[in-house]
């Protein structure tokens, strides 16, 4: 099933930042969003993930199929790596965390408290969470922040494996992951015409 975005406008603080966005992500494909800071990539991803309602347009194929990862990893510092990961595995109804630990090279850290991890290790834990959700569509906001070159390679490998299994990914990143399945999508041309929020318009 494709993730399809039709004529989507997304709003930050009620004011649209992007409008008329159209794309389709098929199974096995990845779409990499590009655009300068503040161009609305995060807002677009949050809307696709269903965390905020679209200003206009529609998102189909996202309902209950999305695993979302953003700047905040939702990692509890007082829980160990395994505990953090198996919590999300159980919430999403999948049991197996070993492949995720292996894929992100967390085996050696499995009993460490998440609070004692470095920023890059935390990030890896946050990304490992994607694998335990069992969700086919990964929606990723700057996934490679604070990762070193080796970890970026691990991540690229995980995405490639995910795509090979028929998953798809939508991500905002500036780093070239060397994925042949990925196509870039520049959001700059979709910048919304300055326009007020619906709430404000009622008063003009």
């Amino acid at each position, binding site marked *: 099933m494709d993730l399809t975005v039709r004529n989507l406008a997304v709003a930050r*603080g*009620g*004011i649209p930042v992007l409008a008329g966005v159209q794309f389709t992500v098929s199974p096995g494909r990845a779409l990499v969003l590009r655009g300068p800071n503040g161009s609305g990539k995060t807002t677009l991803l949050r809307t696709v993930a269903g965390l905020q309602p679209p200003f206009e347009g529609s998102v189909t194929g996202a309902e209950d199929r999305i695993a979302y990862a953003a700047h905040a990893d939702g990692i509890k510092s007082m829980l160990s790596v395994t505990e953090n990961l198996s919590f999300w595995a159980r919430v999403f109804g999948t049991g197996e965390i070993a492949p995720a630990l292996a894929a992100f090279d967390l085996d050696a850290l499995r009993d460490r408290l998440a609070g004692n991890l470095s920023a890059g290790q935390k990030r890896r834990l946050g990304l490992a969470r994607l694998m335990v959700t069992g969700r086919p569509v990964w929606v990723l906001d700057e996934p490679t922040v604070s990762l070193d070159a080796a970890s970026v390679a691990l991540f690229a490998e995980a995405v490639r494996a995910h795509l090979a299994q028929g998953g798809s990914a939508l991500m905002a990143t500036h780093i070239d992951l060397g994925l042949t399945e990925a196509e870039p999508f520049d959001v700059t041309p979709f910048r919304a015409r*300055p*326009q*007020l*929020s619906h*709430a*404000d*318009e*009622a*008063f*003009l």
Partner: protein
Amino acid sequence: MSFWEYANPVKFIRTTDRLLPWLSVTAVLCLAVGLIWGFFFTPDDFRQGSTVKIIYLHVPSALMAINAWLMMLVASIIWIVRRHHVSALAARAAAPVGAMMTVIALATGAIWGQPMWGTWWVWDPRLTSFLILFLFYLGYIALWSAIEDDDTAADLTSILCLVGSVFALLSRYAVLFWNQGLHQGASLSLDKEENVHDVFYFPLLVSIAGFVLLFIALVFLRTQTEIRARRARALQARERLA
């Protein structure tokens, strides 16, 4: 012409601008007539002496304290169901007025209680219910002013108003159960026999009318203010965009 036309901010301001002078004048007139009639030209009660004159303030303000909350409840439901901004702003505008009515009812009640019951304050069910109602008003007003985004604030306060109404009602029964109370029965009821005597009744009615009109006038004025403030923010937002 539908009632919902007044949900348009411009239409609301235009209509209330026409109504406000008349409303204010009749409100002041009714209040003056009711209170002066009550204060100067009614006899003392044979039991309560001259303190019966407090009734012209106490009863109307207590009525409006409850009615203001009911109006906020209705406005909140309209906002939740139909998303008319004027409705949410009217609820916001009414809250301080209702809170003030509650304070008047409490203060006059306490002052009346001192000579009648020998104490400023008793934990009588009615007085206590009003005190709790006042706390609900405080929470509602505090929540409105704590949230920056206007629509979020409207959504959250209207849900608080709904939930609060249920708990206010529960509190009323809880308080009745907790203390049977000294307070006299309702001063007004549909059963004429139980009503206060005619001499007190008519000035009281005029005074109630005055409080109702005062409430409406204040809510109109304050809603206008809220609408204008929103419009100013919207215009400034548009300027920033351009």
